[in-house]
């Protein structure tokens, strides 16, 4: 019997400074706290030694944050040595690290490559320095370029650039120009998503006080439409609502989330799906480090454990699968749940197709969002809750 595949997510909850729109589990911390955290992280990885998970094939790893590139070379190397020691990495494993311009040096990049990292995701957000300031980013466009060139020079062959649209004061023309500018660099992958106002962020407050003005929905949708057109012309396909790649460079790690493969989250607040079970680590940094260093890490692992019912899984199958432009496969549904998708969602699919929010592939084997369906995808997904 072949072993199951497994993806790993490693969370580094540190950054130089919190951006004004960010609601991720991350914040600035001193060197001592960062070091303590890495010690705890190593202990958590160690805890999986000799478990069934350690026998699964690791096909993707994603080191996310925060700004993981804030860690020192020694810290990063320690994490990867421990990971490789405990888990069974496949040779063709996709290993991504997130970084922000201005936090990387040539030495760090060398260290990443030595540890097998083969994909880098850079948070640029915008090539417009004025907008970067408005977002509370720590870098400017030139610093990004320096980082990018450094990565290319070191031989990194798979780079993603994160971009945001619908930013305060941004026009469609500004946005498109920026996108063209970035395309000149020919990254393999682009994530382009519109700003989401999250509660409890400074932006949310500023918006409510009228201190920032955001483009209206029409503009937002126009930017989205343009993104697709421009990137299509440049040879990038949209394979998920907000993700574009040259052929063969689709992010395998994120695809695991949308296809509901097994993944294990390690580090503060990380979420996991293993078989029929979802669980999460504690989100309290002090609790996380104290418990692991005191040898009681198990207490803050696998919290909010949730056994998914078949109903839950069918719903997830639909609302995650439909995020991908390829949509969901009827055959795969039947294979996973032992019944026809029509029997479960026939009415909903018919209704949504009538509203032109869903479409069927020419051979009838797959169902996916239409262009209109993407714009109101939450509405579409909601229909699949049983």
């Amino acid at each position: 019997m072949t072993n199951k595949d497994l993806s790993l997510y490693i969370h580094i909850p540190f950054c130089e400074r919190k951006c004004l729109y960010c609601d991720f589990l991350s914040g600035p911390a001193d060197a001592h706290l960062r070091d303590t955290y890495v010690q705890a992280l190593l202990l958590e990885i160690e805890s999986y030694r000799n478990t069934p998970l350690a026998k699964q094939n690791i096909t993707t790893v994603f080191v996310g944050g925060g700004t993981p590139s804030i860690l020192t070379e020694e810290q990063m190397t320690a994490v990867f040595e421990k990971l490789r020691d405990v888990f069974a990495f496949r040779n063709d494993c996709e290993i991504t690290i997130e970084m922000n311009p201005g936090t990387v040096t040539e030495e760090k990049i060398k260290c990443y490559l030595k540890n097998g990292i083969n994909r880098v995701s850079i948070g640029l957000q915008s090539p417009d320095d004025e907008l970067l300031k408005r977002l509370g980013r720590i870098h400017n466009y030139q610093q990004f370029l320096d980082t990018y060139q450094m990565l290319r020079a070191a031989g990194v062959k798979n780079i993603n650039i994160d971009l945001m649209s619908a930013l305060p004061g941004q026009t469609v023309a500004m946005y498109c120009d920026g996108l063209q500018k970035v395309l000149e660099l020919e990254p393999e992958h682009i994530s382009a998503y519109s700003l989401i106002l999250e509660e409890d962020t400074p932006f949310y407050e500023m918006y409510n006080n009228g201190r920032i003005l955001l483009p209206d929905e029409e503009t937002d949708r126009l930017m989205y439409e343009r993104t697709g057109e421009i990137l299509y012309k440049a040879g990038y396909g949209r394979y998920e609502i907000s993700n574009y790649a040259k052929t063969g460079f689709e992010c395998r790690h994120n695809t695991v989330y949308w296809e509901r493969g097994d993944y294990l989250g390690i580090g503060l607040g990380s979420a996991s799906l293993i078989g029929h079970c979802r669980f999460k680590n504690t989100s309290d940094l002090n609790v996380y480090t104290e418990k692991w260093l005191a040898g009681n890490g198990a207490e803050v692992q696998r919290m909010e454990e949730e056994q998914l019912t078949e109903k839950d899984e069918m719903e997830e199958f639909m609302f995650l699968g439909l995020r991908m432009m390829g949509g969901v496969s009827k055959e795969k549904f039947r294979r996973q749940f032992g019944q026809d998708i029509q029997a479960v969602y026939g009415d909903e699919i018919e209704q949504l197709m009538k509203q032109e929010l869903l479409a069927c592939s020419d051979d009838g084997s797959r169902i996916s969002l239409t262009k209109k369906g993407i714009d109101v995808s939450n509405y579409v997904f909601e229909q699949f809750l049983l």
Partner: protein
Amino acid sequence: MSQIDQSKIRNFCIIAHIDHGKSTLADRIIEKTGLLTQREMQAQVLDNMELERERGITIKAQTVRIVYKAQDGEEYIFNLIDTPGHVDFNYEVSRSLAACDGAILVVDAAQGIEAQTLANVYLALDHDLDVFPVINKIDLPSADPDRVKEEIEDVIGLEAHDAPLISAKNGIGIEEVLEQVVAKVPAPDGDADAPLQALIFDSIYDSYKGVIVFCRIKEGRVRKGTKIRMMATGASADVVEVGYFGAGQFIACDELSAGMVGYITASIKNVKDTAVGDTITDAANPCAQPLPGYKKVNSMVYCGMYPADGAKYPELRDALEKLQLNDASLNYEPETSVALGFGFRCGFLGLLHLEIIQERLEREYNLDLVTTAPGVIYKVFKTNGEVIELTNPSNLPDPSEIEHMEEPIVSAEIMVTTEFIGPIMELCQERRGVYLGMEYMEETRALLRYDMPLNEIIYDFFDALKSRSRGYASFDYDLKGYVPSQLVKLDVLINKEEVDALSFIVHKDGAYERGRKMCEKLKEEIPRHLFEIPIQAAVGGKVIARETVRAMRKDVLAKCYGGDISRKRKLLEKQKEGKKRMRQIGNVEIPQKAFMSVLKLDDRK
């Protein structure tokens, strides 16, 4: 206590404007006379409904008997009848007063006389009660007892020089109040050997005892086994038990006789048989005529009440049934709305009564309700000579069949400090009030008299009055009669479909303004859909106002990284849950809240 000396009985009530401390004084009197220890006292013993305590109002009349040993060394029996304090319950107040021989008038030492103070005093004097004033809240920094005394003498014409100066809250001056009750409230008269004649001033339903009738024995006597007859309703029954009121409990006794206040149980199942104001007599030896003043209480305000969850209809029906056991003035009958499904058209004494019933249904019976705009009873005179009493706007006949319509008007009295006379007159004008006159109570306060259409005051008049006078205006009204009026039915169309639950009757001059405000409000409340939704107000098929809910262009979670899928699921579930609680009209989902939001439209805060 088998034989009670009639000359030692004092039957009295406390009257006051809302918040002047009536219930607090009642509590102190009960405490002072040793009926309950302090520890046993719940704050405000007499207001025993949770809602009453929370709102600081008395809804049902409450009664308690206490024994007071006076300074003259004699023991007196006090029957304290606490009356409802709101205009909605005027008739109940008047019957409670009719059960008394005297009244304590409580006036706030800072605020002085208010509209309800006057209304209540006049009501008490109408019933020949001996009224004596008490000045409360003298411990307040803003208290001005001398001014208030003067005001009482000038405005009401009551002797006030020896009015006790008290603080009910802090128990100051209570003894003096009790002594004045002995001295100033007359002992009841009435002949215990005459045929039975007893006034019903309240009745409640108890699941063990059946209906418990609260009554004042005017003449004669009643005991277990007496066969009694209610003179107005004609119902008769054998008395099972008689007794008097302890604090929060019923204490049985052998007999009630002339001058006494107490209760009777007689295996009566329905409070409708024991109408407030009716006279009880001995079926075998009836009195010559009933006591004066009985009238059947009619509902003045109507609205539709629907369960938010259609499946809860039977629960709503049961709850209304139970509430009605205790509240003969609540009417209801089943009705159906296209928009809201199965529900009831309910009749109330007034808006407060409506709100109370609504809150009790929601709290005590755990029901989620959608109510339609409250309306009054319109008289529709049809061309064929038929007259309809219209309580549901949807039932208005075709305009071609209507000869004319009439609406109820009230005489309103508004007391206001002089600086706010302008804004208040303006408000009354807006509400189609007809100015009758103004009297100065003293230099700084005036009493305005208006005739006003009832349908203009049942929505939000009270709120508007308070906000435009910074809380200084007080208000009282009495139903006066019906007058012809130019009324139209205003319909609301959502996505071209008429929503019956939103229709209402309005004066033709106010239709545009009201229609416009309703459309604006609905626009705020109706979430955007995948398509554009026109909201229109129409009179007789002609659109007079319009708003549009724009189509939803974007509802997308752009970023869905990270494995925390549970969080995303929760967002979707919340969204879906929100829609479950909406009403479907055509293909538009309307939140329950939208139906309620149109009830309060006065935007001049």
